């Protein structure tokens, strides 16, 4: 499908709508630099949307990577100020279990002091009083300033703010090619996955913030960035057995941390090198391993209900001279291709952590601003992201309080996560959610124990009513009233909401099979019976592939929908 080329020109083009790219977009826009960001999926489609949820205190890196530790500790304090609405101050423990070296604690304390990571040893009794579900056989406990952070919500918040400062943020825009003129990269060829339209975006500077895909982007300009994609798997359990982040007090390793976030507790991770950031699955062995490790920190862990499993890919940058992957630094690198390869116009930034996204953005934007002759200082460490002005950190009761204040029980579309009709319609109308996954990322719809059995059907219907109203210019029924009447004619394919539903069910299924046993399997059977028997979704003619707005069909981002 070839369409007319559209030409756009900007100072800076950012590739990648994860935390790093979005952070850079906001920073650039705040300095008054014309910026366009393109992301092939929805925002947070990459690793940012598949991370563990930890706002690092720095504790995990004090020995392995001291510089990272210090950066994390520093950024931790800044993020609490500039985006309190996305952060829960859970606090964190490093605990010595019977499986851990009892002497490691002393080394850990010393290293914390050396790296400026605030730490305090507390008594086991005190720790057990605060977290009674912890393994009573732990021998030492160190308290740090870990937190839980919502990377979806914060990404949307950062993007909104960047837009307010003038940045253009284009999701579902896939970079297919980089265009070089001599020794300079001057433009990107971008496909709008929703319309098939090809755009040529010219830019004075292009920032490659494509995370684990950074190597693929560099290759488009004929350059090498060696990124080793390392897959990490996490499992969310349907209960916050602890309200504090729990780490094992030992060298960071697989399955050694549990993060309470929103209504769940997440155990992670594993670390397995994969050949391609787009092709990986979750192995039953990994799941069994994580469950058994969880049992060591919290006896009875395996009896709770596992809600879902997902994996993200670490973009580990392969520095020259390093041969063993384990020694690869977890800090980030900024590659100036002019210096390294003699090719101007392109900068790559790889690695790092969600916690340090702002710092990474600041550093790369400093370089770009200097080249553009812009002297406006960085303000992202002070300027609060809209919504956080009250300086109130997120707390778990927030959503329920909202529903209670508005007496919105009858308006709940997702009962598990307390998402109202208004929030779903907002995600569709205001943020332009293109499918149920987008709605989920923005509202947490379908993330609870019922696996979206009820609410995805409802959300699909609301989406389709909204779209019908838009396409036929009918009044959109908003708060449950009005009469969005439109008479479809027989030439139309299946209701578009139904197609979304079918896709979402498949994507969800893939995400769930790894953790389906016990009550979760029972729930899956209930959902299957609802969709097959009560609704007969399998009996509808299959119109998949006919709707251009179903961008998930596009091979560039469809991996997760194919098995």
């Amino acid at each position: 499908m070839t369409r007319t080329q559209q030409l756009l020109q900007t100072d800076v083009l950012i590739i990648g709508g994860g935390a790093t790219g979005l952070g850079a977009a906001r920073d650039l826009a705040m300095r008054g630099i014309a910026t366009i960001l393109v992301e092939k999926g929805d925002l947070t489609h990459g690793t940012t949307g598949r991370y563990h949820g930890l706002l690092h205190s720095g504790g995990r890196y004090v020995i392995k990577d001291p510089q990272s530790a210090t950066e994390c500790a520093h950024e931790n304090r800044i993020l609490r100020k500039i985006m309190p609405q996305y952060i829960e101050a859970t606090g964190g423990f490093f605990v010595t279990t019977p499986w851990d070296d009892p002497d490691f604690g002393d080394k850990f304390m010393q290293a914390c002091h050396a790296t400026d990571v605030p730490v305090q040893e507390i008594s086991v009794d005190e720790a057990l009083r605060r977290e009674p579900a912890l393994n009573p056989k732990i021998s030492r406990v160190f308290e740090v300033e870990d937190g839980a952070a919502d990377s979806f919500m914060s990404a949307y918040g950062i993007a909104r703010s960047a837009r307010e400062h003038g940045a253009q943020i284009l999701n579902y825009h896939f970079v297919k090619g980089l265009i070089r003129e001599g020794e300079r990269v001057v433009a990107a060829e971008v496909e709008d996955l929703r319309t098939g339209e090809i755009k040529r975006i010219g830019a004075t500077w292009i920032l490659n913030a494509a995370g684990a895909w950074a190597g693929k982007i560099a290759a488009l300009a004929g350059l090498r960035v060696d990124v080793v994609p390392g897959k990490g798997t996490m499992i969310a359990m349907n209960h916050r057995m602890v309200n504090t982040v729990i780490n094992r007090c030992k060298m960071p390793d697989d399955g050694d941390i549990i993060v309470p976030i929103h209504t769940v507790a997440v155990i992670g991770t594993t670390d397995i090198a994969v050949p391609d950031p787009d092709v990986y699955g979750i192995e039953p062995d990994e799941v069994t391993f994580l469950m058994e490790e969880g049992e060591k920190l919290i006896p009875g862990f395996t009896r709770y209900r596992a809600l879902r499993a997902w994996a993200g890919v670490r973009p580990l940058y392969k520095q020259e001279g390093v041969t063993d992957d384990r020694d690869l630094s977890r800090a980030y690198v900024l590659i100036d291709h002019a210096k390294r390869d003699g090719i101007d116009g392109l900068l790559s930034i790889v690695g790092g952590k969600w916690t340090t996204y702002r710092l990474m953005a600041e550093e790369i934007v400093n370089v770009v601003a200097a080249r553009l002759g812009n002297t406006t200082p960085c303000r992202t460490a002070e300027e609060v992201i809209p919504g956080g002005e009250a300086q109130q950190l997120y707390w778990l009761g927030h959503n329920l309080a909202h529903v209670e204040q508005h007496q919105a029980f009858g308006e709940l579309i997702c009962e598990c996560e307390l998402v109202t009709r208004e929030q779903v319609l907002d995600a569709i109308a205001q943020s332009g959610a293109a499918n149920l996954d987008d709605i989920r990322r923005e509202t947490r719809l379908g993330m609870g124990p019922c696996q979206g059995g009820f609410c995805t059907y409802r959300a699909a219907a609301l989406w389709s009513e909204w779209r019908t109203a838009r396409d036929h210019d009918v009044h959109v029924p908003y708060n449950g009233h009005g009469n969005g009447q439109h008479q479809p004619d027989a030439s139309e394919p299946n209701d578009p909401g139904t197609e979304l539903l079918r896709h979402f069910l498949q994507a969800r299924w893939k995400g769930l099979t790894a953790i389906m046993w016990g009550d979760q399997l029972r729930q899956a059977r209930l959902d299957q019976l609802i969709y097959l028997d009560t609704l007969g979704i399998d009996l509808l003619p299959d119109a998949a592939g006919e709707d251009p707005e179903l961008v998930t069909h596009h091979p560039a981002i469809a991996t997760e929908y194919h098995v």
Partner: protein
Amino acid sequence: MTSRMIVIGAGLSGLMSALALAEAGLRPLLLAKGYGTTYWTGGTIDLLASRRYPNMPLHTALTHLIVAQPEHPYARMELDGIAAAVDRFRTLTKAAGYPYVGGLERNVVLPTALGALRPTALLPATMAAGDVRLGGEILIAGFHELRDFFPPMAAANLQAQHIPARGVYLTLPDGYQRHDYSPRSFALWFEQPNFRQAIGQQLRTLRGTATRIGLPAVLGLRDPLGVVNDLQQISGAQIFEIPTLPPSVPGMRLMNIFHQAITVAGGRIQIGSEVRRGLGAEGVLTHIFSEAAAREQRHHVAACVLATGGIAGGGISTDFRGTVHETALNLPLHAPESRQAWFASRFLHTEGHPIFSAGVPTDDQFRPLDSTGHVVYANVMVAGSALLAGDPVEDRAVSGLALTTGWHVGTLLATSLPAQLAT
């Protein structure tokens, strides 16, 4: 302590068994952890609509299955057994004023809440006007307040299948606004003449050229047929119910009917009792142990029907190591070997997911077998989704299988047991 006839499970299969035993004068005790899937289902009885037997009348498809799959529960009952169960169910529901229509001859095709066209064998008369063969334009009407029914989406899908349809929302009459709404609250409102009058009038106005109107299946608990008749008079169109998401009002109606019939015939139903284990000697089950309110109760068993459902009903449980377990009596199961083999990669895979085919293997008298093919307990019979029968969802036979095997096993036990048990 005298021994008793015990039925474990209050789903459709357990209820049919208990009814058969009670009517034979055997005063069964029905123990169940919960109400089973009945409260979740749409209320139609699906006997068979399998991809493996396409394009033939139901009666013929059943005959084919009986020949092709001699170990299938249907084959073990034969057509006569299936017909007997269906007859009893029809007389039962008719006597209760909630008649079912349809039968073994052919499937009726009804629109679902998604606008799909779904075949079923037996359906409440309140759904009969949904039959797609009736033709004409359909109006689908619902309420914004009832969160699980979206008329425009259903109508759009019907339309795409060349069935003229329109979807509209109705407005709740004044005085009915609440902070929260459930299918049950709507069902109770529909029992009020004023509410029916107001809704009927709206339907009349919105009807246009439609000759039939589909509404969510919430048209009253006690006398739904009366509600339907009344709405037909006011609106001037034929009215039919469309099942929606759980909790299901048609399921509640069925549960009430069974509860009444079993109790009147001398049976007793005890909900909230989970059976944890059984005790047997020489191939005979002698005791079972149930737990209610954290107290263990011991029951002396004469004979027992295991009607605990499958994975949905809680009769089969699983864990992360891949263990598959029959929860009440720890009977041997047929199940896939490891977790890797539990699922197909596509949710809507036409062959279903292997784990959902797990079940108790039985002999032709529905008695449980061990891995060597020997009867485990001679006085236990298995019915419903607990049975090994492939994945009945894929055959669209779940409720039909529960209904027919439940009745069959109940009558089988009643006739095969010594008369002195009937005390």
